[in-house]
């Protein structure tokens, strides 16, 4: 085991793994009848694979990789709409680099750029604001993408644009929220999850209270976790301990960064700029009630959907995902990536068919890059 070199604190990791094994044995978890723990955040998925935690951990503990990678849950129809906006001659379309390769029906943003659209990868919405200032004769559109960690950045940018009375800056808002898809998963009759590892940096913004319903209404433990490997092991141990003691509570393993009430400035900016959409489409999961945000009417001039008459502004037609793609089943934990007929054949990180193959935080890309888990090794 290349344990010692891989972990910053190998002794701690070993001790945690041993304690996990004790509790797993105590609750009778086995390879055949495992405890299913979903890590919600794509950053956690990446960390689990990077350190091989899924292989090191007791065989009775199985990680289910949740829908917490914003690039992976972006539906093809939204990519199509990005391309449509980006193709307009007056538009400078700005986006995080992660979104460039997500396939749309006709093309990805990368392909649209190659075809002549003015698409620019930026690090921050601040860069898009600056582009708008420098190019008053162009329309600068920022592709607002991500969970609660990135939502405050676009909210604050829209407030800034309003203060400066910029008339050539809009946001194509695709911000989504973490608690609602978890609720949708818990309401799924096929659901087989026993507990959750909650996202760290999302919770830094929203705090831990929005997860109360998971413990209270569904009786499932959830532990908000940091993304170092020992953070994750510690959090798994905390989930298992709750199960062993017959408890379900929201616990915070990452209190050194996550305050119980979140970040007040971020929350105020989000509340000022955004309101909930009645529902929003997730790739592989379908429409989920109240899971997406849109720009409030008072900031309408900064809403790309309104300005360009696109997306939910005009009523949308649901469009199918590509043939043979099993992203939905993978995302809900029903099958492993390797069970998708396209895995490694029609779908690789260089030529992704589904979004889970695009980002290093996607379950399929992680399987591909790090050689999968016990399931694959056993094949």
């Amino acid at each position, binding site marked *: 085991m290349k344990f010692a070199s891989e972990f910053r604190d190998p002794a701690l990791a070993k001790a945690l793994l041993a304690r996990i094994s004790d509790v797993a044995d105590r609750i009778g978890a086995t390879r055949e009848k495992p405890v299913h723990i979903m890590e919600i955040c794509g*950053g956690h998925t990446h960390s689990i694979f990077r350190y091989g935690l899924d292989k090191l951990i007791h065989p009775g503990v199985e990680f289910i990789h949740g829908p917490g990678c*914003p690039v992976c849950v972006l539906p093809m129809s939204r990519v199509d709409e990005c391309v449509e906006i980006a193709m307009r001659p007056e538009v400078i379309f700005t986006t995080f680099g992660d979104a460039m390769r997500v396939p749309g029906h006709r093309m990805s943003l990368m392909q649209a750029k190659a075809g002549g659209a003015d698409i*620019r990868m930026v690090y921050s919405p*601040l860069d898009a604001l600056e*582009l708008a200032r420098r*190019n008053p004769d162009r329309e600068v559109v920022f592709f607002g993408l991500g969970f609660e960690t990135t939502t405050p950045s676009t909210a604050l940018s829209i407030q800034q644009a309003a203060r400066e009375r910029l008339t050539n800056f809009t946001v194509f808002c695709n911000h989504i929220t973490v608690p609602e898809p978890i609720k949708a998963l818990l309401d799924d009759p096929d659901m087989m999850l026993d507990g959750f590892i909650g996202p760290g*940096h999302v919770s830094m913004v929203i705090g831990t209270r929005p997860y109360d319903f998971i413990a209270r209404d569904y009786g499932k433990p959830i532990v908000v976790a940091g993304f170092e490997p020992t953070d994750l092991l510690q959090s798994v141990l905390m989930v298992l301990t709750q199960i062993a003691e017959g408890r379900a509570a929201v616990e915070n393993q990452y209190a050194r960064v996550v305050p119980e009430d979140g970040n007040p400035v971020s929350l105020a900016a989000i509340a000022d700029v955004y309101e909930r959409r009645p529902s929003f489409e997730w790739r592989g999961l379908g429409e989920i009630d109240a899971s997406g945000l849109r720009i409030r009417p008072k900031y309408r001039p900064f809403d790309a959907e309104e300005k360009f008459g696109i997306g939910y502004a005009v009523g949308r037609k649901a469009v199918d995902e590509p043939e043979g793609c099993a992203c939905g089943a993978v995302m809900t934990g029903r099958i492993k990536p390797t069970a998708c007929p396209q895995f490694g054949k029609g779908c690789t990180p260089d030529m992704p068919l589904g979004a889970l193959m695009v980002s*290093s935080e996607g379950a399929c890309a992680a399987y591909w890059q790090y050689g999968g888990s016990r399931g694959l090794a056993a094949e």
Partner: protein
Amino acid sequence: MCLGIPGRIVAITDEARQLALAEISGVRREVNVACIAEGPLDDLVGEWALIHVGFAMSRIDPDEAERTLQALRDLGEAQEALDAMAEGQRALEAAK
């Protein structure tokens, strides 16, 4: 994109827009500090923060900053963030 990267605030650059210069893994870049500002902005100089897509989201202590940076390097995400910053800079320059 979902993981923040630690940076140290080295100067306040634009009081009105709440912008500061942060040093992130050896690279300097302007960031928004609205979410971590409690008193006068100048008090932030020298502080560490977790920075998400150009916004300082949470103050952290230097030890946490060091651990987080190490973990991000292991994951390859520190480099991804630095590449994205360089790409953002290019996007602005192409505009001139």
